[in-house]
C-alpha cells in the first residue's frame, strides 16, 4: 500500500467544485444563477434548543497523502466523523496526517487498521490501482467503505469492487463522486434539469483546464515513481479518469443514460518530460437518442477553468463551480416560476435569476453577491457517507432485534429504506462512472472509437 499524493498547487479535479471567484465574475457580468437554497441547521435561539446532531461514526483513513489530509481537514468540520485511525507505510505521510488528527491511532499497514474494532468506517484515499484489494478487505472486515473515484484503473477491478459492495448490503459503500451528494448540484438535477426547463436535451460539454505539470517532486527515484503513478500509463486512467470521472458522471446523471460509444483524442503537448500520459485530451461520448457529451481537459492551459454546459431545445444551462445559469431561448415556454426571479443581462443574453430549490420568501431577498455555499462538495459527500453508514447500521440492528435474523426479510426492509438515504453515489453510480472514464481513456490511448453495451456497466 502506498499513498496518493498531489502537490498542493496542483489539486486535481477534486477541487473542481471549490471556490467561487469565477461565479462572482459571472454574476457581475449579469449571469443567471440557479443556486440551491442552503439547508441550514436549526437556529437554537428559538423556543427549543434542539441541535439535531447525527450519531458519530468512527472513521479510519487508508492512505495519508495530500488528498487524504484534505479529507481529514474536512472531517474536522463534521462533528459526527471522528478520525480514530490512520494507515500509511510512508512515515512522513503518516506523521503529517497524524498532526491533523492527533487522537487517531497510527498504523503502518491497512491490515492493522482494519483489525481495529474502534473503526466503523474507512475512507480509501490511496492511488486508484490499489483500491480493489483494500475495498474487498475492508468490507470483509465489516467496515463501511468510502472509496475515492475512479473506483479502479481497470474495468475488471471496478467490477470486483462493485460486486463486493453488492454482496455486503448491510454495509454502506459510497463512491467518492462528490457531485452526487452536493446539495447544490443535486437540487439542480432534481428541479432544473428536466424537459420543462431546458426542453429536449441536445448536447453537453464539460471542461477542466488547469496549467500544472502533474509531476511531483520526491526525495529519491523510487519514491518519485511511486508518487507519480498518474504519469505511469500502466496504472493511470489519465485526465479522463482521474479528472474526468466526476464530470463524465454528471453528464451520465443529467442525461439519465449511459454512453453507447466513446471516441477520444489525446497528446503530450506541453510537459515533454518523457511521460506518455497525455496532458491534453478530448472525448466525445455518444448516448442513446443521438445525444452527445464532450469532455475536454488540459493541464497545459488554464483558460476558463472548469465548466459544464447543457444545451436543450428551450435553453442552455451552464454549471460552474456549483452555480448554474439558465439561458432561455426566445421561443421557450413560460416556466411559471419566473415571477419569483430577477431578470439580468449576461453579455448579449438575458435571463432569469433564481435559486434552485429556493423558497418564495428567500428568493426575493437573495443577495446576488452572496458567497457560494460554504459547505464544500467534499463535506456534503463525507457527511452523507457518515449519516448513511450510521442509519444502515442502526436499521440492521433495530430490525434484527425485533424480527430476528431472517436475511431475506431484512434485505427487503433495507431496500425499502433506501428512499431515506442521503443523496450519494453508491456502487452502481461508481461503477458506471468508472467504466465510462476507463473507456474514455482507452479511446484516447488507442485512438479508436470504443463501443459500449449496457452489460459493460453491470457488476
Amino acid at each position, binding site marked *: 500500500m502506498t499513498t496518493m499524493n498531489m502537490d498542493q498547487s496542483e489539486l486535481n479535479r477534486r477541487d473542481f467544485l471549490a471556490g467561487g471567484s469565477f461565479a462572482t465574475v459571472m454574476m457581475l457580468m449579469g449571469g443567471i444563477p440557479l443556486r440551491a437554497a442552503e439547508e441550514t441547521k436549526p437556529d437554537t435561539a*428559538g423556543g427549543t434548543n434542539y441541535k*439535531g446532531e*447525527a450519531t458519530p461514526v468512527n472513521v479510519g483513513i487508508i492512505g495519508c497523502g495530500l488528498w487524504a489530509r484534505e479529507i481529514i481537514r474536512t472531517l474536522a468540520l463534521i462533528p459526527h466523523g471522528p478520525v480514530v485511525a490512520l494507515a500509511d507505510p510512508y512515515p512522513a505521510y503518516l506523521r503529517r496526517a497524524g498532526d491533523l488528527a492527533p487522537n487517531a491511532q497510527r498504523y503502518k499497514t491497512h491490515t492493522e487498521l482494519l483489525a481495529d474494532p474502534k473503526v466503523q468506517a474507512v475512507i480509501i484515499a490511496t492511488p486508484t490501482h490499489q483500491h480493489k484489494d483494500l475495498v474487498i478487505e475492508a468490507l470483509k472486515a465489516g467496515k463501511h467503505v468510502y472509496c475515492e473515484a475512479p473506483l479502479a484503473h481497470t474495468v475488471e477491478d471496478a467490477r470486483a469492487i462493485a460486486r463486493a459492495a453488492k454482496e455486503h448490503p448491510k454495509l454502506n459503500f459510497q463512491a467518492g463522486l462528490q457531485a452526487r451528494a452536493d446539495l447544490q448540484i443535486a437540487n439542480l438535477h432534481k428541479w432544473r434539469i428536466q424537459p420543462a426547463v431546458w426542453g429536449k436535451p441536445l448536447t453537453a460539454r464539460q471542461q477542466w483546464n488547469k496549467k500544472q505539470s502533474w509531476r511531483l517532486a520526491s526525495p529519491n527515484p523510487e519514491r518519485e515513481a511511486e508518487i507519480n503513478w498518474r504519469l505511469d500509463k500502466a496504472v493511470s486512467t489519465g485526465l479522463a479518469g482521474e479528472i474526468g470521472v466526476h464530470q463524465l458522471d454528471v453528464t451520465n446523471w443529467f442525461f439519465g443514460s449511459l454512453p453507447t460509444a466513446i471516441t477520444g483524442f489525446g497528446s503530450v503537448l506541453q510537459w515533454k518530460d518523457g511521460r506518455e500520459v497525455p496532458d491534453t485530451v478530448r472525448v466525445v461520448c455518444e448516448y442513446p437518442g443521438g445525444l452527445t457529451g464532450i469532455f475536454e481537459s488540459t493541464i497545459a492551459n488554464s483558460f476558463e477553468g472548469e465548466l459544464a454546459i447543457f444545451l436543450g431545445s428551450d435553453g442552455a444551462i451552464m454549471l460552474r463551480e456549483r452555480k448554474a445559469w439558465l439561458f432561455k431561448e426566445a421561443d421557450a415556454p413560460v416556466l411559471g416560476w419566473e415571477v419569483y426571479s430577477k431578470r439580468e443581462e449576461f453579455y448579449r443574453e438575458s435571463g432569469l435569476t433564481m435559486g434552485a430549490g429556493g423558497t418564495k420568501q428567500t428568493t426575493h431577498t437573495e443577495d446576488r453577491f452572496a458567497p457560494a455555499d460554504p459547505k464544500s462538495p467534499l463535506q456534503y459527500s463525507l457527511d452523507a457517507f457518515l449519516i448513511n453508514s450510521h442509519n444502515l447500521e442502526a436499521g440492521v440492528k433495530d430490525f434484527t432485534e425485533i424480527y430476528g435474523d431472517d436475511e431475506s426479510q431484512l434485505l427487503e426492509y433495507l431496500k425499502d429504506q433506501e428512499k431515506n438515504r442521503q443523496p450519494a453515489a453508491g456502487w452502481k453510480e461508481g461503477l458506471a462512472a468508472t467504466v465510462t472514464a476507463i473507456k474514455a481513456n482507452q479511446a484516447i490511448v488507442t485512438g479508436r472509437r470504443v463501443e459500449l453495451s449496457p452489460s459493460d456497466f453491470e457488476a
Partner: protein
Amino acid sequence: MKLNSHNWTLNLAAALALVWAAQGADTVRYTAQPQGSKVTMDGTSTIHDWTVEGKIIGGFFEAAAAWETDKSLKTAMTPPPKAEVTIPIRTLKSGKERMDEIMQEAMKAKENPLIRFKLAEMKIKGDVPASGTPVKFDTKGELTVSGVTKPCDMEVTMDRLEDGKLKFSATKELKMTDFGIAPPNPNIGGVGIKTGDEIIIKFEWVVAAKKS
C-alpha cells in the same frame, strides 16, 4: 356429613382456579411480523404539515388459544388478552435527516429509544361479523414516550389476514407536551418555524401465531 358452606366455597374457588390456570396455559402468542407493519406520525407546523413513517413495530399479542379458531371470539376473551408493542424511535423517518435528528433529540431517543404500549384491557366494541373480520375493540393501556408513561385509550380494529395473521390498526391523537416533549421551534433558512403540539399516530401492526 354436613356440608360446610365455607369449605364448599373454598373448594369451588380452588376448582375454578384450576380451570383458569388450565385455560391460561392454553394460550396463543402472536409475534410481530416485518411485512405489513407500518406506523406514521403526522404533525403540523407554521410552514407545512409533516409526517414520519416507520416499518418496524415489535412486541407480542397473547390471548386464549380459541382466538385462532373462534371467529366470534365468544370463547376467546378469557383469559384477558395481553399485548406489548414497541417502536424504535430512530426508525421513524421523515425523509429529511435533520428533522429526524431533531425529532430524536426532542424525544430523548438516546435515553428512551422505544415508544412502548402495554395493554391493560380489551373489550369487543359492537358486533363481531360472521367472518370474524374486522373486529373493533375498546382498549385501555399505558403509553410510554420519552420516558413518560400515560394512560392511553384507543379504539383498535383487528383484521384477520391470510395464513392466520392478524393486523391491528388504530389512530390516536396525542400532545407532545403530555409526554414532556417541547414542540421543536427551529429557525430554518431564516424562517422561524413553530411545530404544533398535537400529533396523530396511526399504526398497522401485523402479528402471526408463534410456531413452537
